[in-house]
């Protein structure tokens, strides 16, 4: 086994304590389940001086469901989301996505916030220190070139979270908290605005800032689902993923949201597909036509198993199949 580098583990019991600890230690990183971060630390991708364990902060474990919507604390375990009967019934896509993250043991350990803040992934990055030294480093870590797109000035590492496409499709808003001059700061905005199309920066989280939770709007008969393409039936990160949420009113599709994962450095709203579907009466032909546009704004590169062309193809197939399944399903 690779050795975990030394760090100091801090165990705050309140959000303010967690934020102030992070603020006082610029080399610190927050950790929850650790299923992504600890592996990366062993590979020498992160070398924090301190890890601030958020699992002891009660505020972050909360889940509230009411007619006004849902509050999901960042430290909820993925298995809790997967198994929550109300989430499964009303926000199906989220439950399905949580069920498809890695494997059940990792779902028991990994958290919602961790899955949202998941680092972008690339063949040339998620490797041991020896491997990266042997090949030469890359833009994302220690180097100055991209190994996938030679000549590129930006990093194309892949956005790989399963829950995020589902959450964006369901209209989630994200809440962040920080510590500024001894006081708590907060901001909240749509989850899609949290991500940036840059494999290195990947999101707008500021140093010391923590994702505290998500707000979902009332479900109101929303129909949703999530599909994931991977080589094996478990464990693997997505090669492509699709989340869809929509309502059907008087035979027409409304509030259609289609989100593509793993085909860019950030989740992609398939606005062309959404435009074709919005307000239309769903027919097999229409759903197929809409799905054809789903990869329009994606830019997969050869940094994973399977070719970019095949991953695009799979996005279209999964999108059409998911739309058919959601539209055909008995009314929500």
């Amino acid at each position, binding site marked *: *086994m*690779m*050795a975990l*580098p*030394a760090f100091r583990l801090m165990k705050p019991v309140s959000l303010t304590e967690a934020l102030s600890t992070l603020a006082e230690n610029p080399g610190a990183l927050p950790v929850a389940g650790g299923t992504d971060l600890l592996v990366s630390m062993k590979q020498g991708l992160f070398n924090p001086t301190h890890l601030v364990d958020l699992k002891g902060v009660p505020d972050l474990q909360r889940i509230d469901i009411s007619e006004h919507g849902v509050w999901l604390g960042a430290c909820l375990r993925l298995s809790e989301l997967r198994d929550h009967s109300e989430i499964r019934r009303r926000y199906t896509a989220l439950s399905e996505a949580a069920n498809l993250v890695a*494997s059940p043991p990792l779902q028991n350990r990994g958290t919602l916030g961790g899955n949202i803040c998941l680092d972008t992934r690339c*063949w040339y990055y998620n*490797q*041991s220190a*020896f*491997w990266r*030294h*042997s*090949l030469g480093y890359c833009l994302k870590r220690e180097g100055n070139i991209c190994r996938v797109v030679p000549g590129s000035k930006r990093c194309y590492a892949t956005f790989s979270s399963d829950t995020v496409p589902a959450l964006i499709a369901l209209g989630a808003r994200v809440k962040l908290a920080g510590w500024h001059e001894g006081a708590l700061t907060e901001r909240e905005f749509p989850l899609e605005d949290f991500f940036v199309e840059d494999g290195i920066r990947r999101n707008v989280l500021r140093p010391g800032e923590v994702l505290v939770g998500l707000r979902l709007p009332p479900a109101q008969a929303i129909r949703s689902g999530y599909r994931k*393409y991977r*080589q*094996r*039936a*478990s*464990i*693997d*990160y997505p090669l492509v993923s699709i989340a869809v949420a929509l309502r059907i009113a008087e035979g027409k599709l409304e509030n259609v949201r289609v989100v593509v994962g793993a085909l860019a450095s950030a989740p992609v709203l398939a606005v062309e597909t959404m435009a074709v579907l919005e307000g239309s009466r769903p027919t097999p032909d229409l759903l197929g036509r809409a799905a054809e546009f789903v990869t329009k704004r994606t830019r997969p590169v050869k940094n994973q*198993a*399977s*070719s970019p062309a*095949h991953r695009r*193809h*799979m996005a279209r*197939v999964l999108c059409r199949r998911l739309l058919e399944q959601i539209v055909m399903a008995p009314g929500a």
Partner: protein
Amino acid sequence: MSREFQWIGKPVLRIDGVAKVTGAAMYTDDMRLPGMLVGKILRSPHPHARIRRIDTSRAEALAGVKAVVTGQDAPVRYGILAVAEDEYPLAVDKVRFVGDEVAAVAALDEATAVRALSLIEVDYEVLPAIFDPHEALIRDDVKIHEETRKANIERKVSLSFGDVEAGFSAADHVREDTFFKAAATHAPIEPHSALAQYQDGKFTLWSSTQVPHLLHRTLAKVLQMPAEQIRVIKPFLGGGFGGKGEALPLEFAACLLARKAGRPVKITHTRAEVFLTHRGRHPMHMKLKTGVKKDGSITALQFESLLDGGAYGSYGVVTLYYSGQLLTGPYVIPAFRFDGARVYTNKPPCGAQRGHGGVQPRYAFEVHLDRIATDLGIDPLAMRLKNAVEPNTRTVNELRITSCGFKECLERSSRAVSWTERRGKLPRGRGIGIAGGFYISGAGVAIYFNPMAHSSVRIEADRSGRVTVFCGASDIGQGSDTMLALVAAETIGIPPESVRVVSADTDTTPVDLGSYSSRVTFMAGNACHAAAKEVRNRVLSAVAEALDVPVDRLEICDRVVGVPDNERKSFTFAEAVALAESRGGPVCGSGGYTPPNLVGSYKGGGVGPSPAYSFGAYAAEVEVDEETGSVKVLRLAAAHDLGRALNPPAAEGQVEGATVNGLGETLLENHAFLDTGQHASPSLLEYKVPTALDVPEIEAILVESIDPEGPYGAKECGEGSLHPSIPAIVNAVYDAVGVWIHELPITPEAVLKALRKKEKP
């Protein structure tokens, strides 16, 4: 004496089962010795380079570092095969793949050892590298090993049997196909681990090895010490599959460091190092040409193989020979020609992996055979039955076939999937396929030439009623210790749970060559049977004297020795042993097994012969999604002729495990490299071993042909059972969607590509 078996053929609990499931079992990495240091290996970042200079002074000066060793500490060449001694424990003059071992350090803790590695300065002269075996065949300007006469060819082989030309002339139909099977690796859950101790001028090495004896010999050679001063012990071992089947650099490095530091040193590989150590399945390019009569009978077969060997020889010459030699069954091949070559490339060395040598050609031949059947309009099952080998025959390359349940395997696996009713008649996207195979029950020739037994067993009984079996065989998880307990128990007549097994310790156990070539049940089983008979006879003879009855009236049953149905004329087993002990000295038995001389009358005739062959035929059912290209295996009916199932659940476990291995190699696993030489997927996340969810229902069908020479009629079970699984799946894909896949693994993209190609006129 004929009697019902008391334990053989019935489920027996593994003797190490409780220790394993409770976590009490000590694996090498679980061990700690006083003063033990942590060892780490420095590896080459270059695929091919000359070492100009190594400066270890900064590493040695680091606080906490207790020893640093390089190739100069043991510049002795070795190799598992005498014909291919092309490795050094640590690189001496050159490195030949990314990950090749260069130096090693021992330090007080792991962090210090890792830091010390970064302080070793190696001055490399980077050389051009070769990754493509076709290039390796012809490039003379780049020499991976100076010794190769032409380009980078380690070995070429040409063998011909029967009249091949006449065979093709007599054929009504001749078909040629080419195939490629990508590399795969063992991926054992336990990473390699070695703990060395040097005390009073003697070495003790605890290591995760499949071959304690061969490791023992190689250590003596490399460390330049008498073998009697070295002890090798194999603790519990968590999976080998061939990857721990030869002496490996970490074992030498641990010893060299322990001697230099004067303290015990343990080296455990990281997962990435397990992938770099490799010694797994050779990528193989294959060309086949077969002639057949209209009725499907085969007239001649011509086979060419090109093996991409990686940087060192390992078992490769044997792999090369097996690739051809094991194609002459399980079908009657009247004439056969084989041309093969193994080349060096700048990648981790390939070697032996479960099903060694036969897996790739078996895939190619069985798919090729289905294509011929399709050409002729013959049902693939009928084609196989027509050509199936019969018991007590010889193949064209002189392999002696004794027991053979191949036809029964074909019949039972095909029946399990209702072949006649369903083949070619399922809805599009759904299909069934069948394939055969056969494999050796141990190599007939030892890995190094010697006239001694391939396996030896010593058994002692004591007055407590305890029986202890001592044997060098290495239980690597396949359950060979339980097999020894079972054979001893059955033979003596006591329950398996009163047998203790001491195995795989070169100080205390007699030699067994090791766990490779699927030899242990057959060879160690036979040796154990002979030793147990001797113990039984000693006990019976003492009891016969005490009771004053002839020996042949006595039985040992349920820990009671005596005249059946006569309580007054009986003893407990413990009392009986005490009687035997009273005759003076311990109650011992010993036995050895040496295979009959079956070597062919031609050069190369030593690779392929075995005292017995297993046979198998598997039927697969698949579902192919024509839009995504994904192949889902729904079911595998795996019929394997293992002679006799000594312990049926253990045998079923072997068949199921091998089948899953085959499924992984068919659909997922590819041990691939970047074009700069780095391993493309050195982790269990990216190297795609099937998960439980990827594995279909497997029906293990145990076919018993009762081998005349096997222990209680048993033959091999763990390796041959891999062979048919791959082509059965590939042939089922054809039945489902009408395309043949000639390259493995079958990716969804390859299926889509084949489907598109087929659509075109």
